[in-house]
């Protein structure tokens, strides 16, 4: 894969932080979902979030999106010291579409980006605009397919194209690789790298696929309700915390 790893600072970004999360805490009732979570996301960086199910990855995303109340601070900084809330493109965990759902890619897409009612005959300009958005993920041909008939990889590409319209400052992807076959996975990762370079935006994604981490992530955050380890893919994957969380040392005779 032709992915070259950025340093902690992207070119032309002079080390600016796009997103600065500090001492973040989230509670659902009495349950503490996130505790004292702190990390920085730099411009042009791809950061992967890993952790077991229920570690709070999706909650962290939804908190960054402003959907869940929290303690601690989330600060955004844009070029020129502008601290207003940036646009965040969100690619959710693949929704489940019934195969029979009469929702075409065009319906879904245009409902999200335009107020023009999707049940009326579609104007040519709107179709052209959606097709153009889809072309960013090489998905022009998907326009009239039904959402329920898309493969996992195709669905992720449509969701990605939607997250890129309007062009965000930060792209957040919730398990984009789940339900995607091996070809789709390579295509998706290449595309993310292409997007990162051509639009200079920061990408935060969660994944369970540790094998490919080293090929695309600049930084990996190991999360289990709190941040257990932050570092390069090699650092995190070889850390004791990683092995503990995923019980990789079981059966190695430690209890001996």
């Amino acid at each position, binding site marked *: 894969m032709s992915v070259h790893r950025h340093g902690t600072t992207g070119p032309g970004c002079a080390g600016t932080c796009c997103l600065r999360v500090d001492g973040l805490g989230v509670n659902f009732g009495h349950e503490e979902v996130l505790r004292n979570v702190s990390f920085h996301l730099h411009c042009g960086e791809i950061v992967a979030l890993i952790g077991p199910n229920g570690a709070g990855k999706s909650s962290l995303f*939804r908190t960054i*999106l402003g*959907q869940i109340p929290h303690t601690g601070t989330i600060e955004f900084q844009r070029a020129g010291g502008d601290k207003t809330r940036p646009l*965040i493109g*969100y690619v*959710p965990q693949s*929704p489940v*579409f019934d*195969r*029979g*759902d*009469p*929702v*075409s890619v*065009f*319906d*879904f897409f*245009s*409902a*999200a980006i*335009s*107020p*023009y*009612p*999707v*049940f*009326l*005959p*579609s104007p040519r300009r709107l179709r052209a605009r959606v097709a153009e958005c889809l072309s960013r993920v090489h998905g022009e041909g998907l326009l*009239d397919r*039904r*959402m329920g*008939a898309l493969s996992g990889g195709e669905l992720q590409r449509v*969701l990605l194209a939607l997250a890129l319209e309007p062009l965000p400052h930060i792209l957040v992807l919730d398990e984009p690789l789940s339900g995607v076959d091996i070809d789709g996975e390579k295509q998706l990762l290449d595309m993310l790298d292409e997007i990162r370079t051509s639009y200079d935006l920061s990408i935060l994604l969660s994944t369970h696929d540790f094998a490919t981490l080293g090929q695309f992530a600049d930084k990996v955050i190991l999360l289990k309700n709190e941040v257990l380890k932050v570092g390069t893919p090699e650092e995190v994957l070889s850390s004791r915390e990683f092995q503990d969380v995923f019980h990789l040392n079981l059966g190695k005779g430690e209890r001996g």
Partner: protein
Amino acid sequence: MDFFAALLQPFQWGFMRSALLAVLVISPLFGLLSTMVVTSRMSFFSDALGHSAFTGIAIGTLCGLADPLWMAVLLAAAFALLFTYVRRRSNMASDTVIGVFSSTAVALGIFIATFGGGSFTQYNSLLIGDILSVEPAKIALLAVILLVVVVLWLASFNHLMLAAIHPALADSRGVKVFWQEAVFSVAIAVVVTVSMTWVGLLVINSLLVLPAAAGRNVARNMRQYHLSSVLAALIAGLAGLMISYYIGSSAGASITLCLAVWFAITFLLRRRRL
């Protein structure tokens, strides 16, 4: 008597002309709402609403209101809001929450209707419905409701659909998911309550489910879905009215059976789409 004469013959009667008008207004209304009821998996919910509407009528009658309809509309709307709230705030599956609400509403309705040894028979007409009893003023009311729903559809169908498909994604794109759901539930509540008297409580839900359920068998996008759903409701409405005139059966039940036949046809015709 040739076919066209047979088609026109019933409408020499004033009550049949009223019924025809009512069908022409009610069926597109249900056809339209049905698309969203099916897409957002609320078919059981609309059934429960009918039950709460009945409770409203029972309370209204108990209070001695001349027209208990308004009490029923209010109660059904409150029920819809409360339900939307509880569904969002609890981790229970939707069908469980609906079951809780539905059975409570029915029990309360029967309790009030039979309170102090009251007889239930006066409510029997609600269960079956009678479209021939529709008055011009009520048709006008239905027409206004149809207009409001069409405006609602034009203004917020896109958001409604996104909220149904993926609430978190909709939220991230600025859709007020709770309010979309709330407004839609209230719309169903009002429509079900107002038309219950003519369509009949027992079959009213089928009008909210069958048109779009059949539509799903043939439609590939939202335009085909809406078109087929509204047309099916309209045609079945007219056919059911004629059948009920010539056979003397309940109009609500006849319309429902026409829709069921249409569903069966589309089911057999559906393309095997992979």
